[in-house]
């Protein structure tokens, strides 16, 4: 009898980097957060080979849901080809064996930092958003114990007061990204630092959105077909960024969220923020066979 007869040859016991119990816990917490839309669930955020604050929350959720038969897309501020997006995509493909894509229509699983793709997502797709600060009450209540009580009591008067103060001081709501939104008429959540342009995309969306903050160890979700309503006064309508008339200088596409590129003469040019949408538009303009999906915004307007 020798050692090799007593032991099994080495084989991977688990894939997706995280151990089985970590993934089991995350799945349970995802189910809980789906059951109570917008409510933050605590979880034991694990160490991953990335610094806290760089998307570790999103990465852990994606690793939990990843499988070899899944196709993954990773976005960083709208771009698929940034260093951060490329690194995360490569890492997940390596440890979970997932297929990767940049095309929103082909992806099963989309991990994103600060943007929701311009093409409408389907029921069979899951969007994972990286969240730096999950607590919408933090600006008005720094004591987290009291903030949790306020969530329990649906005591969101201070959130409205914040908007009131902005209107009094500046004549308009100054909240740019992370616009606080009421989910399913019950919990106020911060929809991660997506621009105001993207918040209406969450309302009654067909896809599941999971929001995860690794540093803060909180997970919450917007299940499919759930109401997501930005906090607004009844006589002050919600406004998105005025990008409807801007034209992408590279692809010529119009009516989507744009990145502003300052030029030397003081003027600006614009590029569509969703890089893959820009690439597909260019390919389509050049006559390539490419499928352009339905978009949330039509002619720069969100259909009611």
């Amino acid at each position: 009898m020798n050692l090799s007869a007593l032991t099994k040859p080495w084989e991977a016991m688990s894939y997706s980097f995280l151990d089985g119990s970590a993934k089991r816990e995350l799945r349970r917490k995802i189910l809980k957060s789906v059951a109570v839309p917008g409510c933050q669930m605590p979880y034991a955020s694990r160490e991953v080979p990335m610094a806290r604050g760089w998307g570790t929350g999103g990465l852990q959720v994606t690793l939990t849901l990843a499988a070899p038969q899944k196709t993954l897309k990773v976005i960083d501020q709208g771009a698929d080809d940034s260093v951060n997006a490329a690194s995360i995509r490569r890492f997940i493909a390596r440890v979970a064996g997932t297929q990767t894509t940049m095309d929103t229509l082909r992806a099963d699983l989309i991990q994103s930092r600060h943007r929701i793709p311009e093409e409408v997502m389907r029921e069979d797709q899951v969007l994972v958003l990286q969240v730096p600060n999950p607590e919408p009450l933090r600006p008005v209540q720094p004591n987290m114990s009291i903030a949790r009580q306020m969530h329990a009591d649906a005591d969101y008067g201070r959130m409205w007061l914040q908007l009131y103060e902005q209107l009094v001081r500046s004549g308009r709501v100054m909240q740019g990204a992370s616009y606080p939104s009421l989910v399913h008429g019950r919990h106020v959540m911060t929809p991660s630092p997506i621009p105001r342009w993207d918040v209406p995309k969450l309302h009654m969306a067909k896809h599941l959105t999971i929001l995860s903050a690794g540093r803060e160890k909180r997970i919450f979700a917007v299940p499919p077909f759930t109401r997501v309503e930005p906090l607004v006064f009844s006589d002050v309508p919600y406004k998105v960024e005025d990008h409807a008339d801007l034209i992408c200088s590279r692809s010529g596409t119009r009516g989507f969220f744009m990145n502003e590129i300052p030029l030397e003469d003081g003027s600006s040019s614009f590029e569509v923020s969703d890089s893959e949408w820009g690439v597909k538009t260019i390919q389509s303009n050049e006559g390539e066979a490419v499928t352009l999906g339905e978009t949330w915004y039509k002619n720069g307007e969100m259909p009611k």
Partner: protein
Amino acid sequence: MSIVLDAPRLVMSRPVLEINNVSKSYGDVHALHDVSARAYPGEVLGIVGESGSGKSTLLRMLNLEETPDRGTYSLDLPEVEGNLFDLDRFARRMLCATRIGIVYQNPHLGLLMKHSSSGNVAERLLVAGERSFAVLREKAQTALDASEFPLGRMDAPPIELSGGMQQRVQLAKAIALEPALLLLDEPTTGLDVSVQALVLDTLKRLQQDREITMVIVSHDLGVIRTLADRVMVMRCGEVVEIGLVDQIFQDPQHPYTQQLVHAKL
């Protein structure tokens, strides 16, 4: 032939506020012992006593910030019945936010010092569910005006205002929702005499115009004499004497009340 006149119909007014046998201890210290009191519609009940007599503890109980060891508390309101101390945290918060107003001695306790004054008033309306910006502005302005706050400064944060102005903002916040009960905890302490007089005038006028039931706690017997209809004298957590304001000040019965009144004189 005799003329029979109908006798004037007497209607017994129910007290707006009623507390019975309220006791509270902190360890070995008996802060309140079997305190009972009533306040009738439109009445101002003054509470006087030395430091540590239990006045502020009682006021915190009336504002449902604390729960006694025993005793009952009821308000004559259609939406609540029974002992208010039995309400859960959420019901207490909603009741305090909508039907009980409070003005603290220290404005820092009642106001968000860096928010606008109108925002401080609007906060109360927001908690009650108002969601129209125009209505919030209008109601905040009305409440501040009723408190004789200069409307040109309605968007200035309280931190930039004088003590008297801060008390007016607190008062506007407290009356914004037409409360059934207004609690005043030393509302003029720390203000100079002329400002005190102005704040007292405002309180007196509000009480006459709106007939709000008030409970006022003060060390200052002059303030109590100016505002209160009845006075409750407390000592070491117990009520030693209750009576009409003239009765207490001109013919005090209890030795402690006599000492208190004469000390003032």
